[in-house]
């Protein structure tokens, strides 16, 4: 059971990415590819600052701000230079590779005896259970803050930008600013995931972000399935479902590993499991009235 706990922890570490991708999907209706770069950026900033004996309380805001800058860069390229959002993300992600390598100095930095969020509290003697409590606190904070933000006038305008840009612009909202802010927020969250994952796995690596947007996207799609299935309208519940999606995505991988299938089939079986989960509503026993 311990193994499933570690998979749950990994899912919670990646839940901030899922929230970030969820936001960018809401604003753009397409995923923001910057994610791959800003996740690694969060990781390398964390590793660099912690190995230089900076405190966690300086590292966290630094990670959030730097991730936000990366997202804002994508937003600026997209809105001011009128470049396709997907390409803007790809460009920033590509550029971030060099930035990350420069910050980290080498391609892989292990964290040894550094400060860690997972050692902040000592409630139980089991380090995994401690980590769970800490991650749950972080997730509750994130959901509360983002849930509140999305309910404000600003948040409603931001969500509406994705639904109907022309309408919201006609109402006098500056949609460009909405997109830039939204992307900055999404990538600050993504970088926060990099911050948590780096400490969870014990090292930062230049390749840690490769394909991570797929993880975020998979989590969001699982969440969307659940949201439609349970007919959820509340914002907070939607966010919780997104986090649930991230956890399920990691648990599926854990199940696949547990079954002990041939290593070459790992990805195929993981994909089949995710397919099963997202197609469950379609396989319900009632006749669909679509």
């Amino acid at each position, binding site marked *: 059971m311990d193994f499933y706990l570690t998979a749950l922890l990994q899912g919670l570490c990646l839940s901030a990415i899922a929230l970030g991708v969820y936001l960018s999907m809401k604003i753009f209706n397409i995923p923001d590819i910057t994610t791959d770069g800003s996740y690694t950026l969060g990781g390398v900033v964390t590793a660099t600052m912690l190995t230089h004996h900076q405190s966690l309380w300086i590292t966290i805001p630094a990670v959030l701000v730097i991730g936000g800058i990366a997202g804002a860069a994508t937003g600026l390229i997209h809105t001011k230079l009128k470049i396709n959002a997907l390409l803007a993300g790809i460009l920033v992600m590509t550029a971030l590779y060099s930035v990350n390598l420069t910050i980290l100095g080498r391609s892989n930095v292990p964290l040894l005896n550094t400060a860690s969020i997972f050692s902040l509290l000592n409630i139980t003697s089991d380090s995994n259970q401690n980590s769970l409590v800490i991650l749950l606190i972080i997730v509750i904070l994130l959901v509360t803050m983002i849930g509140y933000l999305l309910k404000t006038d600003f948040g409603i305008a931001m969500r509406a930008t994705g639904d109907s840009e022309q309408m919201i612009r006609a109402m006098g909202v500056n949609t460009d600013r909405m997109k830039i802010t939204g992307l900055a927020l999404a990538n600050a969250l993504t970088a926060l995931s990099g911050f948590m994952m780096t400490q969870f796995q*014990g090292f930062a*690596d230049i390749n840690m972000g490769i394909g991570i947007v797929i993880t975020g996207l998979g989590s969001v799609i699982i969440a969307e399935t659940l949201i439609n299935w349970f007919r959820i309208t509340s914002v907070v519940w939607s966010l919780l479902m997104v986090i649930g999606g991230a956890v399920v995505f990691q648990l599926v991988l854990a199940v696949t590993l547990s079954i002990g299938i041939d290593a070459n089939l790992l990805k195929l079986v993981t994909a089949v499991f995710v397919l099963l989960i997202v197609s469950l509503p379609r396989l319900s026993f009632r006749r669909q009235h679509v």
Partner: protein
Amino acid sequence: MKQIFKLAPLLFVLGLAACKQNAPKGVPVVGFVDAFEDATISQARVGFTDALKQNGFSEDKKTVEIKYSNAEGSIPTLTQIVNQFVSNKVDLLATCTTLASVTASQKTKTIPVFMMVSPTLERAHLIPADGKAPTNLFGAVEDLQYIDTSFALIPKILKPKSGKLVVGMIYNQSEPQSADALARIQSLAKGLNVTIVALPVNSSADAQLVTQSLLSKNIDAFFANPDNTVFASFETILKSCNEKNVPIFTSEAGLVQRGAVAAFGADIYQWGFQAGLQAAQYLKTHSTAGLKLEMVKIRKRVYNPAVAAKYHLTIPPNFQAVK
């Protein structure tokens, strides 16, 4: 209530996990972690398994269970694999390539980790500031000394087209050992009166373009620094170099088999075998007494006769021809 029923299939999928086959009691379990898929690197696993077999731990005879997982290049998967082995309390971990070794050393301080195809702890930055290295790390590792001998081969075998020998290299910025090797070679080249032209490459997809660009710089030889990118894209590099009649030198025997001229370096199979011998000793005695991280012992001087003949190169007599 209806909502609960909706969740039933999901629980069923997760419930499948409970159907695990456990090894019979008393049989030691080895967790073998590979970071990615590669034809040359996978020989380490064969060597490791053979070493266990020679010492009476064979999967066929049910005297050992080797659980094999490959992260297929994904770091989150790699972390989960190591977590799974650690929480299942395997008797020992076997890790192949740097990233797998780093992940394992960060995730357990108690289960012995037998590393292979990995750099020394200093080079992997796994030694903390107080100098106390983790006590559960064993296996076979490598520093950069061997590159000196490998690289010194080139001026011995090859004559420059004009004045000074120019050697081209591609290196991967995303691998610690690759960047380290380049720095070492650049310092060596000064003493050997060789000019190095190095270009960075970040993925095997870029290898062809970067190799072509190197070849346009009028190089006498290509030095294949054995990192993961070169392993993955060696055939592309070989094809481009063959078209321009530029011989390839390297420091890994497997690449000589695939078409490089000559090498002095570790043999990946033997590397895994050496780590496997240590693992077998641990399984016999259940103690790590007398075990320590070793340097790779077997290095070969090998050459490829067909390629040497093509370029009319004379190879020193102490080199073995690869089959």
